[in-house]
């Protein structure tokens, strides 16, 4: 399938839109539609996000749940269910085939082995050694299928002094071990310990989503190697290490100067101004941290003398100067709305009124974001009509791609909804065999 090239005389934004508009994704092929993925994760949104990524790009993903359903279906604010399923699972059930299988049962394990013999990727989140103990670990499955890419997620990974730790993999523990929670949140003030002045987690499941992202990345890297070698491999993914990889340069600072990075609220210790300021209607982020950009910001503020007071990056990132600079910024924004701040910045930037690049944005609540046309025009959100779950507001895949755009095909399915289709298609099981498996609680 070749795509007609957009008119080459179009201005860049129109050309780029013609190239990648997700509204036309269905006209184009899917990159991973040659892959079969088994997602055996349980009670774990890192595993679920990993298989969502592969499913968004067209892989056939079989979601294998215990017969009662994955406990992750119950992970929902205040326990709220929509039909039979929690809200978080409605987001990560996308494009997957939902089957049940009891891996605690020998016959269930045999069925999984038969599926694994045909699969390209297997994802699991059990305590390290559990799948191996069941005869379903990488070293057993590779005997059946040497091309299999086996991805295991666990907090401490599959090897190393703590690998045998039996703790379940959760988001908050990943955020804690990664080092990110340690440097996020308000420091203790003069009043000492307060319930809010403590290490703070991201409100979203940042640990699980980073862990899942790394698991998908690992699977795709292993598939690249398989294309060269013909061989699969074992990918050991610790979500904690996945988030740790992103923990900026705290380890470097400790190595170079034995300095331990501590939390500083909304004051960035390396770039400033790069902070949140109060306006009449909301908080806004504002940045102008290099010398040129600080010049731009002080011009926009109409306070060029501030440039002389805090002339260097070192001045502006000093712990004692940051509150002073912050007070000056808030003195300026005190009578402005967040839109005024944006208008002044954009006037300076678009009309090239002086040097420097300044960035600003209102601190949105989610509903503020949902009200902005930009995201809808770009297909970032979809009001999705799902045959079983009805109308849902869902975040779409985040990539715009010219040749193989990802897409949302269905939101979720009930527990075991695809048992008949999948077990018939892949294992040739007929109605009476399926009925027997169902009666015995294996599926």
């Amino acid at each position, binding site marked *: 399938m070749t795509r007609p090239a957009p008119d080459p005389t179009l*201005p860049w934004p*129109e050309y780029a*839109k013609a*190239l*990648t508009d997700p509204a036309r994704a269905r006209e184009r092929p899917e990159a991973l539609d040659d892959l079969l993925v088994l997602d055996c994760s349980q009670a774990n949104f890192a595993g679920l996000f990993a298989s969502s990524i592969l499913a968004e*790009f067209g892989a056939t993903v079989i979601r294998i749940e215990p017969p009662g359903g994955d406990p992750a279906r119950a992970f*929902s*604010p*205040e*326990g709220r269910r929509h039909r039979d399923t929690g809200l978080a699972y409605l987001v990560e059930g996308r494009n997957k085939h939902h089957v049940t299988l009891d891996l605690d049962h020998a016959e269930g394990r045999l069925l999984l082995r038969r599926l694994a013999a045909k699969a390209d990727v297997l994802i699991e989140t059990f305590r390290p*050694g559990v799948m191996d103990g069941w005869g379903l670990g*990488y070293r057993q499955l590779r005997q059946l299928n040497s091309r299999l890419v086996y991805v295991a997620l666990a907090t401490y990974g599959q*090897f190393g002094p703590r690998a045998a730790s039996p*703790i379940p993999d*959760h*988001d908050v523990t990943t955020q*804690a071990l990664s*080092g990110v929670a340690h440097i*996020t949140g*308000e420091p203790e003030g003069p009043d000492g310990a307060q319930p*809010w002045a*403590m290490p703070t987690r991201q*409100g979203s499941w940042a640990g699980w989503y980073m862990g899942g*992202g*790394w698991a998908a*990345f690992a699977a795709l*890297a292993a*598939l*690249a*190697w398989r294309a060269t*070698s013909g061989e699969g491999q*074992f*990918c050991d993914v*610790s979500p904690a290490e996945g988030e*740790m*990889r992103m*923990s900026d340069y705290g*380890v*470097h600072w400790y*190595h170079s*100067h034995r300095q331990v*990075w501590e939390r500083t*609220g909304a004051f960035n210790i390396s770039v400033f101004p790069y*902070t*949140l300021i*109060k306006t009449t209607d909301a908080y806004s*982020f504002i*940045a102008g941290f290099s010398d040129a950009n600080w010049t731009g910001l002080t011009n926009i503020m109409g306070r060029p003398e501030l440039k002389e007071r805090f002339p260097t990056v070192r001045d502006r990132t000093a712990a004692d100067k940051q509150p002073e600079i912050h007070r000056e910024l808030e003195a300026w924004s005190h009578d402005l709305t967040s839109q005024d701040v944006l208008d002044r910045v954009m006037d300076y*930037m678009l009309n090239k009124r002086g040097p420097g690049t300044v960035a600003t*944005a*209102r601190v949105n609540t*989610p509903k503020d*974001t949902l009200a902005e*046309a930009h995201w809808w025009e770009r297909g970032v*959100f979809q009001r999705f009509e799902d045959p079983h779950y009805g*109308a849902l507001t869902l975040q779409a895949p*985040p*990539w*715009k791609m010219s*040749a193989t755009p990802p897409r949302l095909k269905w939101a979720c399915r009930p527990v075991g909804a695809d048992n008949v289709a999948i077990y018939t298609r892949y294992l040739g099981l007929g109605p009476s065999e399926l009925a027997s498996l169902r009666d015995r609680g294996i599926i």
Partner: protein
Amino acid sequence: MAEAEYFRWTAELFDRAKIFDKPEALAGIRILELTTLILGPSTADFLGEFGAEVIKVELPPAGDTMRYVTPRGTFWKNASLGFFPENHSKYHVGIDLHKEDGKALFKQLAARADVMVENFRAGTLDRWGIGYRDLSALNPRLIYVANSGFGQWGPFALGRASYDAVAQTVSGMIGITGFPGRPPITCGIFIGDWFGALMAATAALVALHHRRRTGQGQFIDYAQSEGLIRSLDWTWVWAGLTGEDRAPAGNRDRALGASDIVRCRDGFVAIAAVTDAEFRGLCAAIGSPGLAEDPQFATLAARLEPAHADAVLRRVREWAADLTRADLEALGEKHGFAAARVASAADRYDDPHLRARGAVWAYEDGLYGPMVEQGPAPKLSATPGRIRWAARPVGWHNEHVFRTILGLSPSEIQALESRGVVGHWADRVGAKPPDGATPGASP
């Protein structure tokens, strides 16, 4: 026993000492990057850690802005600490892309590249004549990753600058993070950049998979704000179904009960006991096993009732206050719930588990001497990731790249240098090598 045997096998399979004796998943893939700060550089870096050759083009003599981003203005051996974690094992060249000959040279590199990564404001490189339209005409197999704040098209894409924290604000991430009633905080790390880079690198791997099947390259438009929107789990489906905004909830997790960060005698610990079995373990550890049978707490749905969740978490906080981090971690392992310290940089730096796994990676660099950094995140058994050398000054590898990849003669390179088409570091902290270093003496 079987489990001990499993860990003996994984220790052998993933042995760090054998990493350099194993092949690399992305060997033979060449990445050309024209990027600054973190989002672009780490997109290339993640691929480089798994064997891609990365050529980093900077504008001499100052180079990448990240060379001047460092905690409290503290440089080390003339380098910023901020420049290290997203620039490993790369070839650093300096080309002045404002000159026509510089663009021509850049195009020669693009003709020989598999993946191009950039993070300029939308349309900038198209205007310079080295954007997707120009480069894909030269090299139809090229995968072009355009990273940005708001994407290549749509209302916000037109001239608006963005940084990591802009993505945090516009996505709603800051709006759902932190403690109710407190001023907003930014994430301690540049999370939109890092997570964005992981998503962009993943898309590049997907596009390489498609190219193996078809020979065709493609264009990828990745906006970091949209990546964070994708990562906000149930936020959007909740707003769609309830019409309500998601507000910050502190460290408590509204969808997982019990899950929190608690203060203990020597620091803070994250605790999560979510499934019924995990919760029974937590109750046993607290010394109140009966709590797990109380109808207020017997099921996850009951535990997620706000009043019930508060009651449990009060108990957990009182219990934890007199224990140490090590006590709580040991109790989690004994009773099967998740408990893990809020780790500082110092905690991670010295952690024998992380050292054994290469999650904290110590090596001797030819230019900077002993280095300790975060290592590659996923651990791949057949094609493990690795760090070869640390970041280098602007233009450090001009000679290598222009001679061995483009085949220029020494006199041609000299002519380009004398006309200022190619160049290297300024005599400025952040750009230049450590004092006393000899160019050519280290890779």
